[in-house]
């Protein structure tokens, strides 16, 4: 039964609520896993909640102009937008979001949109490290977009569509239908790009605390920071769901989604704990090197 528009909006909010909480818990649990590697106990899983509450109940806040406000808003819009046009659970009424209204290109646009908005806002902060962080972020994004775009192209070619629902649908019926197995090169390229996208080591050049503490969000505080933290959860969730949909056969129920996204996210942590950080130029060179070649190869394979 097709719900009304109002109903869909309601479902979308529910879905957004779930992914926000999931994203927060995911961040919390990954922090605990990282802590384990570091030989310690780590923060409570629910710590991100407290942090956001804390940030939101700050008594005063400082502004650096209207764009400064809009930065986190754009970013949040980017995060929510990304998520809204991806089906979180294939075939679910509640979690399909507005995936039928947009396609892969729209989603990719939203991914960019958040970053750009952030760039505008952070630049307004007046802090040199914000500016450097933004430029680093944009430079690196441009670089990892290449393998990512290539792998998306490969996927699009492979499935002959940009509709995410269709792509997921095509992967149903056994894990061998997953893109992971049907076009492994594309997945490798995309996963490497994903490392860059998630800002984990060795690609954490944007907030690099020892270099440019802490990059774009340097001047953000109070509720604006709370907004950024919330977005981090949503955006992470959205990206993970997207990857799951594109490369890992999507999910037919929420449990599968949780397991798959958790594992995809874990790749970040797994690599991140082992390596230090690239310099920006190294990072760019890296993305434009092997991953791009893999991406091209995947496109060729898909095309051929």
């Amino acid at each position, binding site marked *: 039964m097709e719900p009304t528009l109002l109903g869909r909006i309601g479902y979308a909010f529910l879905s957004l609520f779930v992914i926000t909480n999931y994203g927060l818990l995911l961040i919390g649990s990954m922090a605990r896993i990282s802590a384990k590697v570091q030989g310690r106990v780590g923060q409570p899983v629910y710590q991100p909640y*407290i942090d956001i509450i804390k940030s939101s109940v700050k008594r005063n806040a400082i502004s650096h102009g209207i764009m400064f406000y809009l930065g986190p808003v754009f970013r949040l819009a980017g995060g929510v937008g990304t998520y809204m046009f991806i089906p979180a659970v294939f075939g679910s009424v509640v979690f399909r979001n507005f995936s039928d209204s947009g396609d892969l290109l729209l989603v990719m646009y939203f991914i960019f949109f958040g970053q750009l908005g952030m760039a505008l806002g952070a630049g307004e902060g007046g802090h040199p490290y914000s500016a450097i962080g933004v430029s680093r972020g944009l430079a690196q994004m441009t670089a990892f977009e290449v393998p990512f775009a290539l792998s998306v192209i490969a996927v699009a070619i492979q499935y002959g569509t940009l509709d995410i629902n269709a792509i997921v649908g095509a992967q149903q019926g056994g894990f061998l239908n997953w893109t992971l197995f049907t076009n492994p090169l594309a997945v490798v390229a995309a996963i490497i790009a994903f490392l860059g996208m998630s800002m984990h080591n060795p690609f954490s050049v944007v907030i690099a605390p020892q270099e440019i503490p802490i990059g774009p969000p340097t001047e953000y505080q109070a509720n604006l*920071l709370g907004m950024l933290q919330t977005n981090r959860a949503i955006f992470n969730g959205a990206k993970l769901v997207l990857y799951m949909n594109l490369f890992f056969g999507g999910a037919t129920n929420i449990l599968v989604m949780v397991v798959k996204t958790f594992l995809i996210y874990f790749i970040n942590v797994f690599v991140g704990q082992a390596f230090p950080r690239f310099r920006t130029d190294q990072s760019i060179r890296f993305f434009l090197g092997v991953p791009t070649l893999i991406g091209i190869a995947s496109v060729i394979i898909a095309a051929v």
Partner: protein
Amino acid sequence: MSDKKIIPAPLANEGLPPDERGLFCDAAPREYEPARGIMEDFANWARSESLWILGFGTGCGAIELRPLMTSRFDMYRYGIQPRPTPRQSSVFVIGGYASVKTLKRIVRSYEQMMGPKFVVALGSCTINGGMYWDSYNTIKRIDQYIPVDVYITGCMPRPEALLAGFQELKKIIRAGRAEGQNEYARNFEWFKANQKKVIKDWNMPDYNW
């Protein structure tokens, strides 16, 4: 508070180059009324469980923050973590003695922090000068310059003592007694006068939040 005569603070942002003035606020600090009842209790609980320390090792005390923030003592599990920017930090750990040059940065960093903000002072040096009681370059009491919530005595206080200090701070926050920000605003001129008495080349903004 001392009965020292209060010298009126000069104009806002005096001493800054004109092109930089725009980066800072011109409003004087003000007091913030706590929210009512359970709302404030809840907010205080969140504040106490998410203590973000400004990563500014002002003195020797920073040395014992390292073990605290690494795996042996792992302060993350208590909701405490370092933060590289004052804007996002809520706790300022004064790591012992403050030289005049550092005090200037302390004041500025403190003012840049968003309220409610808390100050933990480590070691004897912050209480009454410590072993640098006769030095020409270190202040004796940090509470003359910024409001302090918790003192931890020792030289250096061990990580365990620091941890106990943070637990104490949590209690104070939860009890709603950590009103350093308001105290600073209330006695702003007194604090400023003290600061300016010591910091001879005052070339930073007076209002900087």
